[in-house]
Each structure stands twice: as structure tokens, then as C-alpha cells.
């Protein structure tokens, strides 16, 4: 099941070769927070922190109050597309910080 998005993602991107290994140097990553969609093109080895900061700056949000999730997994600043096994065209979801009390 976990392989589904990976396999499904490649046909959508005809340029991207199949599989994570030997993938092109650059990835197109969509970052969305339901309202906005921003596309980033980054290297596989670039830390996603850069992307996160850029997105937050563009949207005028503080990084502490948002959560970047990749397939439900929290993205760490130090993560790279490689460590998350991201593919070209993958989506980072931006969620608000979850807070609850009552």
C-alpha cells in the first residue's frame, strides 16, 4: 500500500524515471495548505527546511505554528527528499499546529 503513491506518481510524471534510485537531481514538490499550492523545485539532497522556510515566508506564517506532513509523517527541518523517499510531484501538506483543550 505504501508503494502505491510511489508507483502511481511516476506515470503522472512522464519525465521522471521509475523508482527512487537514480532519480533526476531535481524534484518538483507541491506544497499545499488547502488554500494555496506552491510548487518548489529542489534538489534531492536539499534540506526541506529551506522549502519550509520559503513557504512560511511567502504565506506569512511562523514556522512554529505549522506542521509539514509528508504522507502523514511530520517533516523535519533536516529531512531531505532522499530521506523521505520523495518522488517528483509529491505533495507536502501543510497543517496548522494541532491544539486542543476542551
Amino acid at each position, binding site marked *: *500500500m*505504501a*508503494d*502505491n*503513491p510511489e508507483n502511481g506518481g511516476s506515470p503522472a510524471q512522464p519525465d521522471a524515471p521509475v523508482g527512487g534510485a537514480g532519480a533526476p537531481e531535481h524534484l518538483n514538490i507541491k506544497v499545499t495548505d488547502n488554500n494555496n499550492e506552491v510548487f518548489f523545485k529542489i534538489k534531492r539532497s536539499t534540506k526541506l527546511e529551506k522549502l519550509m522556510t520559503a513557504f512560511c515566508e511567502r504565506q506569512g506564517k511562523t514556522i*512554529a505554528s505549522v*506542521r509539514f*506532513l*509528508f*504522507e*502523514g*509523517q*511530520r517533516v*523535519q*527541518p533536516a529531512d531531505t527528499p532522499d530521506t523521505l523517499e520523495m518522488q517528483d510531484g509529491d505533495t507536502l501538506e501543510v*497543517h496548522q*499546529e*494541532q*491544539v*486542543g*483543550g*476542551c
Partner: protein
Amino acid sequence: MPAQASTPRTTRNSRGLRRSPSVEPADDAGRTATGRVAKRRKKSAPASVAATAAAASHLGFANALVAEPTAPAAATAADAFNPANPAHAHTPAPPAVQPVTPAHQAPHSPASPEPLAAVCTPSPPSQIADELTFASVGTPTRAQYKSDSPGYETRRFKQKQALEGEKFARELYQAICNDHLMRDCCCGQPTIYNSREDAETGTGHLRFYTVDSNRNNLRVLQRKDDLTHHCQCFSANAPILPQFAKHLNEGSRKRKATDSEVELIAQVEGSKPSKKQAKTVERALSPVNELEQPSSGQSMFVNLQQRLATMGASVFNFIGRTYQTIWNANAGHTVHDTRTHDPVHDQIVVKRFKRQYCLPLEDDGSSTDQTKPALSPDVSDQFQQAKWTTDKTKYIGRENITNIEVSLRRHAHAIRKNIGIIGGLSREELKAALTEEHDIPLCLLIHLLAEAEFGPIATSDPGEEKLNKFQQAARLYLAGCDRAISFINNIYHDDRSFENLRIAYPEPRTPLSVENVDFRMHTRVAGDFLTFIARKGEDVGVSAEARDALAKMIADAKAVHKQELIPSWVELPGHNSPDCDDSVLDLSSIMKLFDETPLDSFNIEPVYSVKYPKSEHATVPVVPEEPELLLEPIKGVLKSSREFTAPVSPSYVPTPQKKRRLTFESPVAKFTPPKKVPPELKSVVVQEEEQNQLRYYDQNYGPFLAGMFGDVSSAFNERQRERQRQDLLGREEIGRRNSEEQARRELLTQDEKDEERRREEEERAAETRRRRLDRERMDWKKELREKRLALERNPVMTPETKAKAMNMLSGDAKTPPEYRKFMEEEDSKSTTTTRRKLWQKHEDDLEISDSKLVDLQLRQQLEGELQAQLERQVREKKEEQKRKQEAEERQRIEEELRKQEEERQRREEEQRREEEKRRRREAEEAAARGGLRPPTAPLIPPISDEWNSRVKEAANANPANELCQTLEPIPLTRRDFEEKLLPATAWLNDNVINGSILHLADYINKKAGVTNQNPKCAAFTSYFYPRLKKEGPQKVARLMRRAGIRKANFFDIETILIPICEDSHWTLAVVRPGQRTISHIDSLKAGRGDDETKAVIQGWVEKTLEDKWVRREWRVVDLEAPKQNNGWDCGVFTITNAMCLALGVDPKAAYGPQQLTLQRRRLAAVLLNGGFVGDFSLDGV
């Protein structure tokens, strides 16, 4: 009407004509009329020349004659004289003012050049006369209904405009003017603004404005909510004046409704015809109202208007009165430089500039020698002495008045009949044309008036224009004549108003209101006209005497207008009184009187001097340096209060000092015995008494006592005397005697001393024995008393025995035997004869029986005692037995009670044990059901001080610093601690929840010795559930992989913790594959969960297990957990519940809601510590 006056059209021209600065003060008064005339031009006479030309005012008319006609503005104001325009007359002239002659009335309609005349009501008579009556009366009332909201061109008006074209607004304007006139409204016509912008910012119900400076192109604005056209003064509903009413339907297309028609109209209007209704109908039918008050919405509006008028009546009254007061106070003078100091007379004077008709004379040179000297006090006093005159014409002179009147009438007649006047010529032409046939002065005057009013008339001007100017000037002249004639009639000939005033006021006074305000306005115009004549008279051959008379007349007119004393009507000593030869009062005297007046006569008094009048203030003229100009301090506010002194009353007694009461000292407490005790001092009387008593005893009983007691009495006497002596001598004497005694003793021989010592010893021994015996006796007595008491109480003895025993105990038995013996010895030793001895001598025989009796009695007594003792013993024994029995009884009861108690305790114990057993059983059952057990150690123990301080440090750390990392790893910063965890009411965020729960799972797995990929306790982050719910179970593979949950190891896992954040509320879903249970713990519901959530989780489990899923094995259970009772702790509940379930502990038994504040700190410490290790290990729980 400032609004009107301020419009440029109205004043520019007249101003332009004016050159003399002295004219300025008159400007205000002149403006009103100017504006009105200017406006009038619009509605009247489209045929009138030069629409853009300025209108001439009366002021302009007057002044322009003064000035050289050089001003370029040469517009005509032909419409100003349009006799056919009924709107000209602002107020109908009162009959008294109008010297109505048939000849005067005649020419009005044929001369009308106006095309609109047909629409208007026929003009009333004497428009020309009314022409000049405009005054500024309307100005203040206009302000009453000022409304600042912008106007709109309403649909109604637009339709009308479209229907009727340009003339609509003009006709409306005229209709309004007519209505004002006919209802005797003094408020004046609506303002005509220069542009729409002006009109929108202006005031009034209807605001007329011109388009493109084209006077004919008039438009009108109306406020949307305002249907009235009229001002809301009283006149709005006033009936039409009778003189107009009869003309109402003349020459009109409309006629008055007949009675039958009224009914018909009323039916159409849908209401019963009433008187009011009929009136309204009548008004509606009239041509005037047809335009201004369309029938739609009229009835409602009429009511509203009436109501408003009723409601506003008092306000209007008040405003009217106020206005009248102000008007009277100001009464047309302009006050400049109100207070000046006149050094000559050393007083404050007020300079009042008089109206314009006086000042041009000054410029003319007729009073150049006058420099407005201050009025001397005696002159001002003369006003106080003024009396009503007997002959009103005396001051000016009857002939003079008649001359003037006759010539004016002649002029008027000549103009009306066009006899002997020529015009329409320039100056040169006129000079050439004038012949003997013509009335040369009149022609010249009309020409001068025309030049003054309309500018210089050149020969080259078109003849038609010149003629037009001439005609208008002639009309103006005619109007002036009529005004002046009416003025002369009223003031000098007609006695009516004079008599009225004289009756009303025995003494002349100011303000003096002659006739009504209209008349006074007319009089001003007349004054203007007369001024013109007086100024120009010299040129045209008016005699000096006549000019003098004119000047006085002008002064009268001015006084009428200003409501002052009319010089002709009063006799001022020294001026026009009979006893004064100064019968010819020249103009300068008048100036003197009226130009500068002492401040006092103005009654302008500072408020403070009214409030704090000074006695001399009335007489002494005000000196500017006088300190009363300073405001006196109000009493009691600024003045320091006087110091209070005690009342000087004779009965005043100062209050006693309380201290005295406090310093009271007990004399007893303070007593110290004197060193020398004084002898008892007896008063002489007492001593004598005692002496007497002694003497009495000596005398009466002395022999008997001496016989009976021998020396007893003498000894007694001796002792008595001795004591007295001692008392008298005092202790000193005793001391002295003692020392004497001692000295005597010293003198004694050894033998004697020995003897004495022996004797003393004996005495002492005797004394000792005696004392002992005394004591014994006392004891004996006591014993006896007791015995007697015992005897009395003896229940056994018979009364006889008792009495005997009592006898025994009395008498000598009182004395113990030994003592008695001693006493006897003593007695025997004593040399003195005692009574006892006497008795004993004779009672020897009795002694035996006595002793026997005593013996007997004693024995008896002893027996009694014995018996009593026995009885007592028996009684005591009985009591003892009784007590014993009681004690036994009690003991027995106690024993029984104890037994019962023990029984009860035993039973309770059993019960408790059973209870405990049952509870344990239940717990076991619950545990068997959920696999949960009660905790074996407190779940939330307090944390150490060290950790407390570390938590505090974390809350105060640098916000940018990373304080610790969770297992994900997510860096935690100060924000997560300070804002999201530590405050007691903070809402927890995902970092804290996920961090804590991952640490928990890690602890369980580490403790079990398994890896997180083959966990005993698996934990998801809070992002799992939303994704699961939104995307479905197939999209959470990555998260499951990360949590180490696979189909293969699913049943090896004991607990799967799923924190959920939904709608700002943290809950926990728990899957326990070992127990095959799915639960959802919501702390707000005390552990019970949400069915939908459970279904989602069950769907995930089902999907994960695929073929391993056996539906009937799995249960969806509700677990019990402490209930959250606030709005902020759910996150802490979630984590704590997760801890319990991961440990397999029953949450309900493990903690309570009150522990959660501590738990917050504890969780912070755990996060800082990096998991449940070390100090925070959950081992043992």
C-alpha cells in the same frame, strides 16, 4: 437673512457703488433688502434688462446718490420696481402706514409687464409702498428651521420640471413668495443659491438655485423627507390676510370650491368634510397652493404641520421673545468700540454709530465741524427729565412740516400723473431740456436718484435704457415720497399712536415702540428718502430752514426706527422745551445727543457689579481703574475661613479634665502608718460623758460594788483611770515610764532581781498554762458543741433524754473540768473575792450532785454516742452493700455491651472482608474484561525540586533555543513548554502529545526488551487519525511502517495508542490486539468514546488484518477513566490515559483530575529528560 445677504449677487453691486467708508455701518441693515430685491428679479420680469446685473438696494439707492456715479456696475433693477409683482411686499403694510389713495392704487395692473402675472394672485395695493419695507426682521427666524441636510431634486419636482419646463421653479418660487405675503409671514422668501452645490449645503425646505448663472433657469431642491415649502413659523397656518383673500381668485384660472364641491373633494380624499378640511380644500384649490402643496400626502402633512406648530408654539414664543429682546437691545445700531475712556469728562462712553442716513450728512459737510464730542452728564440727564410734549410739531415747526409734506405730496402727484417731469436723459440733455413748465427740482432729484441707483447716465446710452432707468428712479422716488408722507402723517399729524404710548407710559422711556415693526421698517425707508432729499436739497434749491427741518425729521425717523425717544415727541429741557430759547436745534446738537452716550445710560452693567452692587456705583461714574472690575471672590470659596473662637458666654464651663478621674488613688492603698501613733483623741464632750458615766457608777453603785467586789471596782476604776491617763499622756509617757521602770529595776539588788525573775518565771509559767488551758477549753467547747449537735441529731434518744443531756452539756459543763479546777486554784490564789467564791461558799452540797449529774449525763451521752455510732455503722454497711450491688450490676451491663460491640465489630469486619473480596473480584473481573489492573504505585508522584527548577528554566529559556527533542525527532522550544504545556489552563499542542506518547511507547518496548519495529506498545502521532479518516486505511502505510505495525506482528502488540485531535479536543483511541478490543477514551465523557471514531479505527484494524480479522473476536469497549471537568486539561488526560493503558493499569484507579497540574510539570520534565527513564521511570506502577 444672512444666507441671502451672503450670496454674491446681492451685495456686490451696492457695495460697488458705495465709496464712502462711513457708509459701512449701514451695510448690515441694507443687505436684507438688497438680497430680497436681487432675488425678486428672478421671478419677475423676464423682460427686465440684464439678468446678470446687480440689483440695487435701498441702501444702494441712498448711497449711490451720495457717491459720484462712477461705479461701473450699471445693471438695471427694473424688476425691483415692478408693481405687478405681488411677492415684493414682504409684509403687507398696516393701514396706518399707507396713505392709501385711490390714485396710488390705480396704476398697478396696467403697468405690469410680467408674463407671470396671470399665474400669481393679483397684486395687492400699495406694492410700491411695500417695496421698501424689507428689513432684516426675518433673519433670526430663518435660523429656527435651519436644516443642514442636503437637498435632493425630488421625483415630484423632476416630473413637474419635465412637464412644465423652465417656468416650474420660477412659478413655485413666486407662489411661495405670494403665500408668505398673503399670510403675513415675516420670514422672507426662500434663498436662491448660485449653484446646486451651494443649494445642497444651504438651509431651508426648498432651495432654489440658478443654473449656468442664467437667472431664468431656476431649479429647486427639496429634502427628501421634507414636504413643506414654508417656514414653520406661525404664519405657515395663518389665514390669508383679508385684503388678499378677496383677491384670491380674481383673474385666476381657479375658483373657490362651492360647498357641494367641498364635499365631493372630501369624498375623493376619503375623509369626512370638516371645517378644517374645507379650508384645506380651499387652499388646495387656490392657484397658489396648487403648485406648492400637491395633494398627494397633503392631509397627512397638514396634520403633522399643525402638530409641529402646536408643539413648537412655546419654543417659538420663547425664541420670538428672545429675538425681540435682542432686537430691541440692538435696535439697529451698530456698536463699535463699545467702551472708551473719555479723558475730558473722565467717564466711560460708548460710541454708537447711527444709521446710514445720518452719516452721509456728515460727509456732506453739513456737520463737519462736529467731532462727536462726548455727551456731558447733564445732557444725558436731560433724557431722564424728558416729558411727553404737548405739541408734536413744535420741535420742527408746523410750517416746516406742512411745507415738506405738501412738496412731497406734490412730487408724488406729479410722478403719478406724469405732470411736469421729464426723464430718460443724461445730465447734459436734462439741463438743456428743462424748462419753466417742468418741476425742475423734482426732475433733478429723480435724475440724481437714477444716477445714484443705476450709475451715471451718459448721453450716448441707448434711449430705451435711459428711459427705463428714469422710470425706475421715478418709481423709487414715488415710493420714498409715499413712505415719507405716511411717516409724517403718523408721527406729526395722527395722534393715535402717540396717545397710546402716552397712556401706556406716563414717562417717556426707551425702548419706545411706535406702531408695529413694519411701520418702523417703513420709517427707516422714509428716513433714507428724507436723507437723500436733505443731502441733495441744496443742489436743487431746498432752503436751509427746510433742510434743518428735514434733519430733525430724519432724527425722528431714526428714533422711531431704533425705538428710541422721538425728539419731537418729548420735551428735553434745554432743547425743545418751551422754557428753552434754544428753539433751533441744529443737526450738530442732535449728533451730540445721539452719537456718544455714557456707558451708564446703556445699562450695560458688568454682571459682577449687578451681583455685588456698590452703593456709590449708581452715582459715581465708572472709572476704569476702579477695582470693581476685578471679580470679587465668592464668599466662602476663596476667602479663608475665619478662625473659630470659643463663645464668650458667662455660663461657659470648661469640660472637667478627665485625667483627674484617672488619677484617683485609694487612700488605703497609699496609707503608711505614722511613726508616732498619736493617743486617742476624744472630743471634750465624749470625755466628759465618760467621766460622768464613771462618776455616775461611783456614786450609785460604788458602795455596793465596793461591798460586793471589794477592790474590784476600785481596781476597775484604777485601771480605767490608768488607761485614761495613758491615753492622755500618750505613748511617750508610757515609754518614759517604762524606762523609769527599767531604771528602777537596775537599781534593784541581785536578790530582788532573782526574786523578780522567779516571780516573772512563775507568772510566765502560769500564763503558759493558762493559755494551754484556754486552748483546751476552746477545744472542749468545740467538742461540746459537736456533742450537742450529735445529741440533737440523735435519732435514737428520746426527747427527755435529749433534754437531760442538753442540760448536762450546758452550764458548767461548758468549762472543762481541768480548767475549772485551775480557775478555782486561781481563784483561791487570788486575794480578790470573786463571785464564784461567793457562790461556791453556798453550793458545796450542790457540787456533788452537780458532778454526779455531769457524770450521768456524760455516760448517757456516751451511750448515745455509742448507739449512734452503731447505727451509723449499720447504715454504712447497708450502703456499702448497696453500692457493691450496683457496681456489680453495672459491670455486668458493661460486659454485655462489650460483647455486643465485639459482635458488631466482628460482623463489620466480615462485611468489610466480604466487600473487599467482592471488590477484588469485581476488579479482577474488570481486569479480566479489559486486562487492566489497579496501580501498585502512584502514577503521578511529585517531582523533585531539581526537576522543578529545570522545568522553570525551560519556561524561561531563550525562545530560539532547542530545549530537547522528541523521538520523531521534533525539536521542542520554550514555546512548547511555556505556552502549550506548563500554564494550568494551557491547551496542549501536538508536539507535547506526540512527544509524550512516543516516549511512553518507547519506554514500554525498552522495558519489554523489544525494538520499536516489533513493539509491545505501538504509538501513532496525532497526524495518523486525520489522514486515516480522510484518505482511508490504504494511505497510512508509511505511518504504520514507522510505528512498526504490520499484519504479521499485529497480535504481538499489546497496545496501540492513537492520539486524536478533533475540534480542538484531544482524545485517545486504543487498540489492544491482545484483548481484541477497540476503545476510544474521551476525558470529557469519563472514558466513553465516540462511535464514529471507533468505527474508523475498526475499519483500519479490519483492513490491516485482512484475512486474520475475525469479527466476533473483536469487541468495541468503553473504558472508564476520570472525567475532565474543565476546558483545558484534555491533552493531559489523553497522555495520562495512554500511560495507564500502556502499563495495563485501570485509569480510573490510577489518578484523579486534581493531579493533572502536577502531571503537566511532570510531562515537561519527562520531555526534558528524554523519556520515561531515570527519575521518571514507570517501573513498579
